[in-house]
């Protein structure tokens, strides 16, 4: 059974279309990165999946209709929507008590042992904790829940690099196994690239790219082309061209360009593109703006 399945998922706010007929399927055991510029519909899509907003079209999460059965669904789904949602007045011990009180799958001992590795005081209120500690607390609560789907919407926004790294390390080492599914959105694409099994780009309410990481590695290549060979390389129809290290870097979709790795290696050094470069290439292409220019600032843009 697919963990998340959507067909023709639509949502509009007045005349603004936030989701324009999305089809998607996320299998169990995947870690999907949902990447898109601000206002692309990422959060709307996640809100629909979490039963926080009504929608048109068909959507099933773990076999349930999220809007109709949010409270039932939340026994199997966890989410961290961004760092600032834990109520500021709550004490750490109260948060543990409450989640243990209402959630049948919460393992309090697990949460306690995770907290023991941090400097968080059980008697502190959330308002007394630093931003990083609040995220650690929220993560401790969520990781102690035996859920089947974890949704993370910008979970590390505003955290320093140490906390960000720790966050994803804990998630991978202490939480993830093949029976769970994680969906994550973030602007810090490069930091989660090695974590993901799948990646999806969303722009203007549509999914413009949907690919597993294995496929990304086998299908897309970047070549740092020697200046004298640039014309020949361009003739092979790269997806995108950008400048770096004084060279032109061309990004190829091997399937579309009908070339293989060997042919491209003749033009210069080849490597797998980063998600960020792929994102720029795909979105630059779709929005009709010249290749090589990002239509929007996708990295660390303020919300």
């Amino acid at each position, binding site marked *: 059974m697919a963990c998340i399945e959507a067909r023709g998922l639509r949502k509009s706010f007045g005349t603004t279309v936030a989701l324009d007929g999305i089809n998607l399927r996320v299998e169990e055991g995947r870690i999907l990165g949902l990447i898109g510029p601000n206002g692309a519909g990422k959060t709307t899509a996640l*809100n629909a999946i*979490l*039963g*926080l*907003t*009504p929608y048109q079209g068909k959507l099933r999460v773990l076999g349930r209709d999220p809007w109709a059965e*949010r*409270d*039932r*669904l*939340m*026994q199997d789904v*966890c*989410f*961290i*929507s961004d760092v*600032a*949602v*834990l*109520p*500021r*007045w*709550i*004490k750490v011990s*109260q948060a543990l*008590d*409450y*989640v243990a*009180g*209402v*959630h*049948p*799958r919460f393992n309090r001992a697990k949460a306690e042992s995770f907290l023991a590795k941090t400097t968080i005081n059980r008697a502190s209120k959330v308002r007394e904790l630093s931003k990083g500690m609040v995220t650690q607390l*929220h993560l401790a609560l969520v990781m102690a829940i035996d859920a089947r789907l974890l949704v993370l919407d910008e979970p590390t926004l505003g955290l320093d690099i140490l906390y960000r790294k720790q966050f994803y390390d804990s998630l991978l080492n202490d939480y993830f196994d093949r029976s769970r599914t994680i969906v994550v959105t973030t602007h810090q694409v490069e930091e989660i690239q090695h974590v993901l099994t799948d990646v999806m780009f969303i722009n203007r309410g549509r999914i413009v790219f949907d690919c597993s990481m294995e496929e990304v590695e086998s299908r897309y290549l970047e070549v740092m082309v020697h200046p004298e060979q640039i014309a020949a390389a361009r003739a092979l129809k790269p997806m995108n061209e950008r400048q770096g290290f004084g060279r032109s870097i061309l990004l190829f979709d091997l399937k579309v360009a009908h070339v293989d790795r060997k042919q491209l290696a003749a033009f210069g050094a080849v490597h797998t593109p980063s998600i960020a470069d792929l994102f720029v290439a795909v979105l630059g292409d779709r929005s009709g703006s010249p290749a090589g220019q990002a239509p929007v600032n996708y990295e660390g843009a303020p919300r």
Partner: protein
Amino acid sequence: MNTQSNAMPESHLETQVVAPAEISGTRRLYWSLRRELWEYRSIYVAPLAVAALILFGFLISTIHLREKMRNALTLSPMQQQQLIAQPYNFAALLIMFTTLVVAVFYCLDALHGERRDRSILFWKSLPVSDLTAVLAKASIPLVVLPLVTFSITLVTQLIMLLLSTMVLLGDGPGVAMLWAQLPLFQISLLLLYHLFTVHSLWYAPFFGWLLLVSGWARRAPFLWAGLPLLAIGIVEKIAFNTSHFAAMLEYRLGGSAEAVIAPGTVPMDPMTHVTPGHFLSNPGLWLGLAIFAAFLAAAVRLRRYQGPI
């Protein structure tokens, strides 16, 4: 008969086996209530503070207690009772007023605060339905605050009685008169009756309205709670030159005595004021409760749609 009594425990056992990790609705409601008490500590702190203030004032007043009791000896038993009961009634009145104010402010913030501080996203990430959450919030003014009021008032009055007894001890017949004439049981019973009839059931539509506004307004729920009522009254006055709406509000707010207490009771015997039959047969009560239920249903629905503001 036999098959029936056999079938019951079996089916009970079955449900236990099928769902070992289930958490009952009551348990979720209980934790939702505790969460309200954690957040809104004024629910018990405010009446406790007022109780402390009352006791402090009463302690000072005991300086003249012996003298007062000696003078009271010459009065009729009825007057003695009134004189002795007066501070106890006053304490109950003050604490009741406090919790009523707390209830109004609580209701206006209950569904607004969680959206303002975005914590609604955290609450909604847990398997607690909007109905449970809103019911927990509604039961604060309807059940919790009356119980808090009653307990704190009773304890305050007992401490007052204890203080008076200590002061009067060894000073003639004062203690005997105090214990003979103070109708503490009656005062308590009347208080409990009053709290659950008037503050809880009779005022329920107001609390429902406040909760609804708190769940709906993006800002200034206090204004939104009051202005529409004022607007309806003004429009009615201008359009029809009547004031039925204002009269209805006034009856709901101030006319509780005639709804709760049957006419023709003896004012000097408070126990005759407890007339639940009269209260329960008042159609106004049931109309009010129906309006309350409608407001609450709307608040539940709103919470489902609302996100952080």
